[in-house]
């Protein structure tokens, strides 16, 4: 890749923007997009990602302001810094999009995801699953003599870790909501 070729004083941008033109470093960013809650708006956002070849790692959407008819879409995406900048600019062009926030660069933020995991097993494995669930602060929301459904919330890594532990104990099925994220402070 080409070397960092920035002439001194030629850019008034923060160091964040000072990178080689074709940097191939892959970064993961979490974007919060405030949109009009109207038909087709999700299709526009998804169509942008597929049409321009961007990645979606996770996407969640729900109405957050009933009177203002706005929804919040949280997208976790991966790409080079230039692609991430493009994604934000392209999202900003969509007419029903009001705001695009890059939570990864706009200061500290919290990310949470909810998952349901069905674990089937008997005897020692069943006890072990319950014990681990306790450590992860997962709740039992359904129980039969041969299975549990655990509800767990946390960052994606925590859920990954919990799922990895449940796998040998009889992980049967998993449903994840995708990431909801918000900046810290006001």
């Amino acid at each position, binding site marked *: 890749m080409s070397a960092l070729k920035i002439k001194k004083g030629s*850019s008034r941008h923060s160091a964040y923007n000072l990178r080689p*033109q074709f940097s191939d470093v892959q970064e993961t960013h979490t974007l919060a997009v405030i949109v009009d809650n109207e038909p087709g708006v999700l299709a526009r956002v998804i169509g942008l990602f597929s049409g321009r070849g961007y990645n979606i790692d996770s996407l969640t959407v729900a109405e957050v302001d009933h009177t203002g008819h706005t929804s919040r879409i949280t997208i976790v995406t991966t790409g080079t810094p230039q692609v991430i900048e493009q994604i934000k600019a392209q999202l900003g062009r969509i007419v029903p999009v009001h705001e695009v926030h890059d939570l990864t660069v706009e200061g500290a933020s919290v990310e949470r995801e909810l998952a349901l995991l069905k674990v089937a097993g008997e005897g020692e494995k069943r006890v072990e699953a319950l014990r681990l669930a306790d450590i992860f602060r997962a709740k039992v929301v359904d129980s039969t003599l041969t299975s549990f459904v655990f509800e767990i919330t946390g960052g994606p890594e925590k859920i990954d870790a919990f799922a990895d532990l449940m796998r040998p104990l009889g992980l049967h099925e998993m449903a994840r909501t995708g990431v909801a994220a918000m900046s810290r402070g006001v």
Partner: protein
Amino acid sequence: MTRQMSGAKMVVQALRDQGVNVVFGYPGGAVLPIYDEIFQQNDIRHILVRHEQAAVHAAEGYARSTGRPGVVLVTSGPGATNAVTGLTDALMDSIPLVVLTGQVPTFMIGNDAFQEADTVGITRPCTKHNWLVSDTKNLSDIIHQAFHVATSGRPGPVLIDIPKDVQFASAEYVPPQKARTHHYQPQVKGDIEGITDLVAALEKAKRPIVYTGGGVINSGPAASQLLRELVEATGIPVTSTLMGLGAYPASGKHWLGMLGMHGLYEANMAMHGCDLMINIGARFDDRITGRLDAFSPDSTKAHIDIDPSSINKVIKTDIPIVGDIAHVLEDVLKVWKARGRKVNAEAIAKWWGQIEDWRRVDCLKFTQSGPTIKPQYALQRLETLTRARDRYICTEVGQHQMWAAQYLRFDDPNRWMTSGGLGTMGYGFPASIGVQIAHPDALVINVAGEASWLMNMQEMGTAIQYRLPVKQFILNNERLGMVRQWQELLHGERYSHSWSESLPDFVKLAEAFGARGIQCRDPADLDDAIMEMLDYDGPVIFDCLVEKHENCFPMIPSGEPHNKMLLGEASTKDAIKEGGAVLV
């Protein structure tokens, strides 16, 4: 006073209130109520095309030559799908259009009804925005918003899909003054920090260049005027993309000619060698940049664009300015004047000396010899014989388009209508119809290739019906010239399907429609034939038989930088490396 009216009447009223006086369209089952309303009024003129694609291109021609949004009315299903090429074309070239489509009644949507298509789904990626109107009470508001969205910020096509029951039902009409203000309000004023940085760079620059694009024309006449003022005051050379021709006059003394793949040698060399590039309303398209890692290697790059996504998309920009061209240029001039009108005059004079050296290469030189008309000669004569007229030029897509851009000269904006981004063969003829509708007394010429022209030749019917004296200037080489050129250079001269077999007799074709047909094959007859075309009061098909194997030069081969131009046939051998063949 509340005004109850049917949805169909509301459409006509909203168009009227938006100042629309022409609609290009084609009727069908799902838009009959609107057509019924059009029948009962005289404010809005409806132009019946012969194919929905042509309606959209005609509206594009209308929009580009007037600066006002073009309006299209077509039916559901095939009417809407036929419009898709035009919508994509308008999106790529940022042309403001409002397209109204009929839709099956709301209660039938999703049932695979007759002439049903998921129009908003199909057109979502090829419009700036679109709406499916589910209730008549929202209809007038949506139409007003549609005009706002189409024309503000970076312009583009929008589409409103109107189910038939929504056209029949009644609701209260909302006039434009009372319509909801849309949150979509793009920034027009440029950031003063960026503008100051640009002026500072301008004051010091030794080898500056202004590179303009379609954005200058889209911004309006004020932008062209301010561009001229800036260039005249600073003495900076100016080049333009295909889309921006006419923003700075070709007769202006700072004009370098078009740049890019088939741009002029001096323009491309200056782009490569400059130390300050001021991109005004262009988007670093791949036809312009060539090989990216060798694109203008030593320059500071400033980029003025109303669309933030254009900035840093392809080329890293040192001085980004988001805003409307006219607003930004006004501020640039203000700041530059306030800081004492400084330029590095000595260095710029030297830079001009270098440019004059490049200019002496005379890259557009050709020799008209022998019994066959060279396409360049045909355009040179057309230019000479029409220069003094009130002239609008459209083109199709291919070699003739590039030659037209090279040999015709534009002194004003909105005079040049060509499909730049999408490269739509079949664009030019319907576009010329739209232009002639907007400018009934002007000379409107469509420079065409025979293959492109045949793609929308059904519009001869429209031209005759509305007595539109559009001149179809066809450079007939019986080839898909540009395809043939690439096959010659890149595919071992294997001319796969790139010739026009079974061509019609264009003179008889013209006569069959009731137009004038002129054929010219002898260079000695060319002037007289062109004059005959110009003097005829009505549509003309001019079949100009030209040299069949002429190539379009200069050319930057795919995968090469600006300073590796091909200038003539002698230099083309082994010019394109293996990797270049995969690029288009």
